[in-house]
């Protein structure tokens, strides 16, 4: 039993040494790339910064759009013979309705008279309902449905604003997805080419290692780690300008009175680290597959 324990201990010590050696080989590869490292990390940092900026702005825009959309209401003017309570209840039964508020014509008239100098005439205003939808993208379809009801005289809502908000929101989401694809491709392309150069410069070393019985994964792993490390280093640089952007975004949120979530910022950082290291490793794997025959 004791022997088995020792054996396990020895194995783990050997594995630890091999892991350490893999790290040393990784840094040796980075050292060997020399000045090229600066270009790789710099280019990747610029790409990641662009992606981060678009992603963060898109998230912020999403929350702004959400908040603005939430305050958009449909004003429904009822026919003189319509019962406000019954009409409100009928609308509440429809899909995507968040809230229906009854504005009695007496109240509207009172408010109007309070704000303007009006002659003493009979109240000409109709009873009205303020309808809020649960998501601003349904505002148009809900409005179309309401306008066809028999008890409805007319409706008003900021159709243009609602439409523009929806378009901006859609564009920013689509842009994020496209940029993500471009960033992934560029990262893999850059890393792939760099690792190919490193493999080329260490050809002799690799050949000796494989002929002397060094494991395939030991030869390959440093290149994969090198690719990931480039991604991580580039992200660390990209975070600097992105944190400045975060400050500006916070000011915009403050101006509109919309809470600025720190979670979005941390989520962006996490995403950048994860994405750059994964794409970096994939770029390396690609060049290993093409250039490193073991």
């Amino acid at each position, binding site marked *: 039993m004791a022997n088995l324990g020792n054996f396990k201990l020895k194995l783990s010590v050997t594995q630890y040494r*091999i892991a350490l050696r893999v790290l040393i080989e990784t840094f040796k590869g980075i050292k060997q790339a020399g000045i090229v490292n600066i270009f790789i990390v710099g280019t990747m940092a610029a790409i990641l910064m662009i992606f981060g900026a678009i992603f963060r702005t898109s998230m912020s825009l999403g929350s702004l759009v959400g908040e603005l959309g939430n305050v958009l209401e449909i004003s429904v003017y009822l026919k003189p013979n319509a019962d406000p309570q019954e009409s409100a209840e009928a609308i509440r039964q429809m899909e995507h309705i968040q809230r229906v508020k009854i504005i009695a014509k007496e109240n509207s008239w009172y408010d109007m008279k309070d704000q303007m100098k009006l002659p003493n005439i009979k109240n000409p205003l109709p009873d009205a309902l303020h309808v809020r939808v649960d998501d601003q993208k349904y505002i148009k379809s809900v409005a179309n449905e309401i306008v066809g009801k028999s008890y409805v005289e007319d409706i008003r809502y900021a159709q243009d604003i609602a439409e523009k908000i929806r378009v901006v929101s859609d564009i920013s989401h689509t842009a994020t997805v496209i940029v993500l694809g471009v960033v992934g491709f560029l990262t893999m392309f850059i890393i792939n080419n760099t690792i190919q150069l490193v493999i080329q410069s260490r050809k002799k070393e690799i050949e*000796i290692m494989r*002929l*002397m019985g060094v494991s395939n994964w030991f030869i390959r792993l440093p290149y994969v780690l090198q690719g990931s490390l480039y991604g991580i280093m580039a992200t660390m640089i990209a975070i600097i300008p992105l944190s400045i952007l975060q400050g500006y975004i916070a000011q915009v949120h403050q101006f509109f009175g919309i809470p600025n979530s720190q979670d979005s910022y941390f989520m962006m950082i996490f995403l950048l680290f994860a994405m750059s290291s994964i794409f970096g490793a994939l770029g390396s794997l690609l060049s290993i597959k093409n250039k490193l025959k073991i």
Partner: protein
Amino acid sequence: MINLRGVNKKYKNTYALRNVNLDIQKGEFVFLVGSSGAGKSTLMKLLYREELPTSGNVYVSGVDVPKLPDNKVPYLRRNMGIIFQDYKLLEKQTIYDNVAFVIRALGVSSREVDNRVKSALKIVNLSHKLTSKPKELSGGEQQRVGIARAIVNGPSLLIADEPTGNLDPQTSLEIMEILDKINSRGITVLVSTHDHAMVNHFRKRVITLEGGHVIKDVQAGTYG
């Protein structure tokens, strides 16, 4: 130790080896001779699975080499030492690091690496060149570093492909004497060469290849 049975190796339309049958016992010193293109290097590459035979069986220490899965090939090679004609040393690294770097990659402890490297360099009489770079050494010394690297992991088989191809006769003799010394420790040594004088001087087993065929296999033989 080494068994080849009906081995053929064909590159496109040319046969490098034809129906080769061979047995080499543990602890033997064998010269593999023949003119360029006779198939010497191909035969050696089959042993460390750098090449696969077109047909036939290759066994090293009982292992069916062609059938060995790719991920097991490193384990086969760890039991061998390979010496190259062009030395294959890393120019930027010291002699010590050239010998050490492979066993470091195998997870050997620093103290053990130090012991093994120093003892391997002592066998090849290069203990005084630990911190030198390959370019500071003569061709013979560089090949001795190659030998030290090949034996540092304690192989049971040493494969030397034209180890004296780039060396003068006196230096070649020194290299062969080192290989002979290593063989006397029980390590099987297989040397390919077309150096007549060397083969005739040592009087070891000589296997002659011609056009991919084994045409002669003589104990304490000569060449030419």
